[in-house]
């Protein structure tokens, strides 16, 4: 027990999120049409997260998923990743602030009024010195269907 207590301060920083998602702006969409939501993601300076399509098969990609809801998810697209070198490997990663684009469609028969889409962003962050265990952030997107 004393060992665990001794080690706790070493890991307190590691437990902080290395990635944050800005609260999404409410999406207004007309029935029978499509609309785009840009989700803004911020990675702490000095860290990176793997891209949505990393080169290494063992690496955990950045992945955004939307649950079934009042809108249908037509597409999710990520920006062009950066290439960095760690050891002998060249990795495709995201750093800093970037947007993930989601395109939604509102069915013609969707009931008008406020609604919610729920999503989940799974990521795995590293610095040059260490990696952090995969984590997820739950996302709530307010929607107004007209």
């Amino acid at each position, binding site marked *: 027990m004393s*060992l665990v207590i001794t*080690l706790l301060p070493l890991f307190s920083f590691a*437990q902080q999120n290395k990635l944050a998602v800005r609260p999404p702006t409410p999406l207004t969409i007309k029935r029978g049409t499509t609309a785009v939501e840009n989700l803004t993601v911020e990675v702490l300076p000095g860290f990176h997260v793997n891209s949505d399509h990393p080169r290494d098969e063992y690496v955990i990609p950045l992945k955004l998923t939307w649950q079934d809801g009042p809108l249908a998810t037509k597409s999710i697209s990520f920006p062009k990743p950066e290439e960095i070198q*760690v050891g002998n490997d060249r990795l495709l990663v995201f750093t800093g602030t970037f947007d993930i684009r989601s395109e939604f469609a509102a069915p013609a028969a969707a009931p008008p009024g406020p609604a919610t889409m729920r999503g989940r962003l799974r990521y795995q962050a590293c610095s040059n010195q*260490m990696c*952090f*265990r995969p984590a997820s952030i739950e996302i709530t997107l307010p929607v107004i269907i007209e």
Partner: protein
Amino acid sequence: MRVSKIAAALLGLAAGVFALSSCTHSSACVSGQNEQKTTAKAAKDRKPAPEFTLTDASGQYIKLSDYRGKVVLLNFWATWCGPCALEIPWFEQFEQQYKSKGFEVVGISMDEDGWKAVKPYIAEHKVNYRVLLGNDSVAALYGGVDSLPTTFIIDREGRIAFTPHIGLADKNEYLNEIQTLLGVEDRGCQDESGHHTAAALFLRPAK
């Protein structure tokens, strides 16, 4: 005046040669450019490494106490961890060089996908030491292990002998710690194969 300048130059040259010579044979430069030496904790200050039972790739149950009497490098890692991958060849080398002297590397994989991810990786990388599949309970015993790699050097009595390495460490720090506990010759700035091993050779900063 000229004679004194020549004498001073010769003195400086001699001092440089002496410094270079002592660097390759003393422990003052075991950490390469940092020139820092890790020191083993006094026996009375060493805490017992928490006991655990995990399975290896063949399904065999392995306890940490099975290694009592040996020096153990206990490395928490994952297949998705780039800095961990940089250390694995070092650990393979340590295992090969010091196994006969009572040393073993034990890897604990924290992969959520379990052996499905780990088995192909250890086969592909020809990992020559035992790998166990970790879990949150064992990680909690060792402080949570949220960041990888995290490595503990354990003495023959099953106690943690040095401050844990959190993140990519210097190969020579590991070497120094292992050699200290095994009581083998200190090769200073060089590893057993005679190659210089400064961390800068292995790590290139992200742009």
